[in-house]
């Protein structure tokens, strides 16, 4: 058995564009990550289009990468046997960004709960409904509130809690949460994130995908920062977010609008990012067009992951 719960080794996923997909660009570019068995919250942070959602889908077994391996408990996710596959589905669950898109608008939301109980736990309706009641009460809902209702009858926050209940129902070991709070009002966000924190106590690990470094800092143990498909810095969340090693991480943190940073935020010089596709295809460091510390070497050669203190960072400054 492997010591890791989840391991990604040099995973790449290409998307084609242009004339019948002739030009390939790497949405995820040789990403490596690992999560220990001990329950943790790992954040994958980055800006829109950095490949974090693609990476989430790869972890979930929904999108097969062209290169690299994804291991769950030491087994290759994309070549699981039938029985193993079923176990993987049961143990690795997800919560998505758009609560209204999570459920089919033509179906009742409770069908997904009963479906999960039936498929994942082989439960009959009666047994299932007591299990569902219990799970719903954990997220602060009752079964009567949701039975026979379509998604449009709920608020976004309620739907997101139902989505969490659905994921919990199969008694998962790992939950991939893809921007779970970005469409929820700021004042209710914490309620959802606190649920995650509590679930960690119940032996559930999380991959938390987000663009918001403040919430990432609030809940995560470890963090990986992505830029144009690549993981450019990873390590303990405190270390990465408070001490920032990669110039891009520095730019991200310094751009975060926060009370008390007013003077620095407005006055300090900074440069906006370049055009996406070009940077995805760059042969050297992808951050070169905006980096304040760029060197000759950065243009030619892609930096590997260097150790810097407790973190790993893909930047020649640390080579």
């Amino acid at each position, binding site marked *: 058995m492997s010591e890791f719960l989840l391991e990604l080794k040099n995973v790449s996923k290409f998307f*084609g564009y242009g004339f*019948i*997909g002739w030009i390939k660009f790497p949405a995820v570019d040789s990403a490596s990550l690992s999560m220990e068995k001990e329950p943790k919250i790992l954040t994958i942070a980055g800006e829109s289009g950095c490949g974090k959602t693609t990476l989430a*889908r790869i972890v*979930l077994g*929904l999108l097969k990468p062209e290169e690299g391996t994804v291991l769950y408990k030491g087994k290759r996710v994309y070549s699981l046997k039938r029985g193993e596959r*079923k176990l993987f*589905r*049961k143990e690795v*669950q*997800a919560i*998505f*960004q*758009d609560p209204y*898109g*999570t*459920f*089919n608008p*033509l*179906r009742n939301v409770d069908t*997904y709960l009963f*479906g*999960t109980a*039936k*498929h*994942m736990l082989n439960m009959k309706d009666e047994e299932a409904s007591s299990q569902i009641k219990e799970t719903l009460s954990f997220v602060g809902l009752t079964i009567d509130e949701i039975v026979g209702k379509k998604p449009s009858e709920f608020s976004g926050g309620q739907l997101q809690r139902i*989505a969490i209940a*659905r*994921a919990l129902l*199969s008694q998962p070991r790992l939950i991939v949460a893809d921007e779970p709070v970005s469409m929820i009002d700021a004042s209710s966000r914490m309620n959802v994130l606190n649920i995650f924190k509590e679930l960690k106590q119940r032996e559930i690990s999380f991959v938390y995908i987000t663009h918001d470094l403040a919430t990432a800092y609030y809940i995560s143990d470890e963090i990986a920062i992505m830029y144009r498909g690549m993981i450019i810095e990873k390590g303990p969340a405190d270390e990465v977010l408070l001490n920032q090693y990669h110039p891009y991480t520095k730019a991200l943190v310094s751009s975060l609008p926060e009370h008390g940073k007013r003077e620095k935020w407005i006055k300090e010089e900074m440069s906006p990012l370049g055009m996406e596709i070009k940077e995805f295809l760059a042969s050297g460091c992808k951050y070169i067009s905006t980096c304040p510390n760029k060197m000759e070497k950065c243009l030619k050669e892609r930096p590997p992951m260097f150790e810097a203190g407790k973190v790993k960072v893909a930047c020649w400054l640390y080579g």
Partner: protein
Amino acid sequence: MKITKSLAITIGVLAAHLIFAYVLPYFAPYDPRRWATVPRDMPPSTAFLFGTTTVGQDLFWLSSYALRNSITLGILTASVSILIAFLLGATAGFVKNPALHNILTLCIDSFSLIPGLPALIVLTYSWRKYLSPILIALILSIFGWAWPSRSVRSLILSLRERPFTHTALLSGYSMIEIFFKEYLPYIIKWLAVSFLGLLTWAIGMETTIAVFGLSTLEEATIGSILYWALQYQAILRGIWWWPIIPILLLTTLIVTIYQLSNMIGELLGAR
């Protein structure tokens, strides 16, 4: 409120057509296809409501037969076309291999660009000795599926990208279950609308090839009445009711079906 009122009118007009086509033939006093059963070239009157033809048929009973045959043929064509469209479109939407997907897509797109009429004419001409309403329906179906197939494909493609597909997968549903439970409600809505579209297309197309003299001309259809009217120079001889009656029946029918499909589309939120 407005929709329900016009919906009532539409359904009323459609029902009148259907009664005329499917109930009235049972009351026909004689086989209306037979020649020389009534005096020739009589304009519409109380005796002959729709007038009579140059070969001595009563247009009232004849067009009731013809409308029945045309609608039946249309329904048959639309059903077969929808089936092909559904199967091919769903395959194109579900195929994972990008090359295969692109090829299927290009094929469907090419087929919708090919002008169907000359091909239909050659095909019906080759088989003219064996033509029956069923065979015509099958031949028409060969050229009816492409357009709806395009839409089925893109509908499935867009549904596959919706997050609820992933939710269902993570709830342990198989792809087949997802297809039937999650997608079919959307596809059926859409198919209902395009079935009506195909129905009008098929009725019009049968009429078109009949006017070229390539349908079951002995069997009464709206098209064959028009064909014989043209053959006997009815328009130039001033026997205007001979072509006008089937034209009016067909036009009102098709416009009504089109209105109905619009309303259904709006009600179901398809499109």
